[in-house]
């Protein structure tokens, strides 16, 4: 009887230790998997946002050439489901410059770029671009 009780105690201890080891391994794997999944998801989102903001740069140039630099906000249509893209046109600090801020929302996070256009003769030339994407 004593021998059986000791045997059960040892088995119980071994089982608890094994369960703790397996639990720790599963927890570590889950954390690593979640971090990798988050990185992959953010890489996909920021790649799509860069594409949207690149398209916004082209559209901003077209918009300035076609309708001038009067301050305004423009929502743009995008072919990407679940995304929004807006342009805000405002006069720059220096004369003959216009600041266009493009904001895109995709995958629950926002990306922004600030474009500086300089008037060159009758046309607007892009002189600087600043990109801000989610980390």
């Amino acid at each position, binding site marked *: 009887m004593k021998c059986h009780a000791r045997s059960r105690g040892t088995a119980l201890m071994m089982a608890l230790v094994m369960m703790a080891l397996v639990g720790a391994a599963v927890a570590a794997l889950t954390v*690593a998997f979640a*971090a990798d999944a988050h*990185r992959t998801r953010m890489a996909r989102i920021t790649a799509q946002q*860069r594409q949207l903001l*690149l398209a916004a*740069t*082209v559209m901003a*140039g*077209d918009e300035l*050439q076609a309708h001038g630099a009067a301050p305004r906000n423009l929502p743009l249509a995008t072919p990407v489901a679940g995304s929004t893209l807006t342009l805000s046109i405002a006069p720059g600090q220096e004369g003959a410059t216009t600041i266009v801020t493009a904001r895109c929302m995709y995958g629950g996070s926002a990306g922004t*770029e600030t*474009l500086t256009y300089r008037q060159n003769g009758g*046309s607007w*030339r*892009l*002189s*600087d*671009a*600043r*990109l*801000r*994407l989610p*980390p």
Partner: protein
Amino acid sequence: MRTGSEELRPAKRGVPGFVLMELLIALVLLAVFMIIITQVFVLATRAHRDSIRRTAQVSRVDSAVRRLREDVWGAPAATVDAQGELHVTRAEGEVVWRVGPAPAPVLRGAEYRLERTINGARADQASWNGLPAATFSVSGQVVTLTFHTGAAGLGGDESVSAISPVMLQASPGGAP
């Protein structure tokens, strides 16, 4: 009920027990098993440590590529010189990216560092250690950073590209 004298009585002849040979075989098997377990444990520990270092390396690559993309995004010009350094023209000055040896490499195939300077001075977040060998190239409006990961046993080359809308709009046939 058994008395104490009965419990101390030696085993009778004919009762099955362990002989010396059986004990020796059991000890040898146990030793072999322990050696295998130790090897597996060492391998698992090494793999875990390598995995942590590789994860940190991926984070450093992500950070460097993100900064490179931001630099190139607003650049009206980008060139690679004879030393393989990338020169990116920005409104705040010239940003130079170079690949050099890392001070204390801890991972095989990650013995290099990326450095970023603005007008010759180191800026914030200016270097990333423990990266694979890398080279820059510029083709039109696209800057490509190629990591040569073969030495790390991770396959062939891996490339990431960064585009400049400013160069894109200034190029012949580009957007207005």
